[in-house]
């Protein structure tokens, strides 16, 4: 296993935490998405994200499930490096769909930062992740495109977008030691460097946004937790907490 520096760990952990919570949020729609086919598709996409999270955590702690679980589930809230976009509980399906679109288009840009990573496992992971992510984006694009064709659905999606953009900007809040990870060659550039490209994609899909007026929630270098985080973590741990030593 490659030696992982503290800066590399921070950057990988931030990505893993985002993937983990995004996957968790998606899978919570199983059984309650608007129709059965979407229910299955969305849960399947969520499973892929959970898989990416596990593979990223494996880079940090090795392949043993117990080690991955300890890191994934039993950190204190201030040790997480997820962003508020993936921590927020969204009861509205429109908000959820828009978040899926915004997140997955940013995720593609984020993986690309690892293409030539000094950590070979990460470079391999990019190929694996993108083979799944292209279907996630196709799903998000097709859903959004179909809904934007219908007037009342378009209005709902636009309202969702207005609610989601400030939260989504939090994706580009980066961990404090990201610059060291760039210097070490773990990633090629800051995730924040992808912001303009991502904004262009948002404009192309949803129409030009007034980015100057789009407020962002306070940036904390991913140390602050969204108000919904505690309840989310407790749902994630609900079964595990019954018996931490259980073998599945």
């Amino acid at each position, binding site marked *: 296993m490659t030696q992982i520096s503290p800066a590399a760990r921070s950057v990988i952990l931030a990505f893993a935490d985002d993937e983990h919570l995004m996957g968790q949020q998606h899978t919570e729609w199983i059984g309650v998405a608007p129709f059965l086919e979407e229910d299955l598709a969305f849960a399947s996409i969520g499973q892929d994200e959970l898989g990416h999270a596990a593979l990223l955590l494996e880079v940090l702690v090795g392949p043993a499930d117990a080690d991955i679980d300890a890191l994934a589930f039993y950190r204190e809230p201030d040790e997480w490096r997820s962003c508020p976009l993936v921590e927020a509980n969204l009861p509205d399906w429109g908000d959820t769909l828009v978040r899926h679109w915004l997140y997955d288009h940013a995720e593609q840009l984020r993986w690309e930062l690892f293409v030539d990573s000094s950590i070979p496992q990460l470079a391999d992971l990019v190929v694996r992740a993108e083979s799944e992510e292209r279907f996630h984006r196709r*799903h998000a694009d097709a*859903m959004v495109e*179909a809904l934007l064709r219908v007037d009342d659905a378009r209005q709902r999606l636009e309202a969702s977008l207005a609610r989601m953009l400030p939260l989504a900007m939090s994706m580009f809040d980066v961990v404090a030691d990201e610059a060291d990870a760039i210097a070490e060659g773990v990633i090629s550039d800051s995730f924040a460097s992808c912001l303009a490209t991502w904004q262009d994609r948002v404009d192309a899909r949803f129409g030009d946004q007034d980015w100057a007026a789009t407020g962002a929630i306070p940036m904390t270098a991913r140390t602050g937790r969204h108000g919904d985080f505690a309840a989310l973590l407790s749902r994630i741990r609900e079964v595990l907490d019954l018996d931490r030593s259980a073998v599945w």
Partner: protein
Amino acid sequence: MTIYEVFLKKDGRDEFRHAGALDAADDELAIIAARECYVRRGEGDRVWVVARNAIVTEDRSFFAPNHDKPHRHHSGEAVAARRREIREQQAAEGDAP
């Protein structure tokens, strides 16, 4: 929403087989839903989705009468049975003292 019928083909020489149906808003969403609903565990490596209303058919009464025309069946069973009967009859006569 449109109902689509889903057909899968497994690797190798199997033909496409009907796997089920799904609801989708358009063709693109139908093929995406088919991927997630019917082949996420590798049940097939080729998929057709066909809008149900694109399938040409007729109701059962249009096809049913042909079930009842034995003279159109060409399995040869009736002829074989008749020839067997004659053979056995001839054999019985030949064996007679």
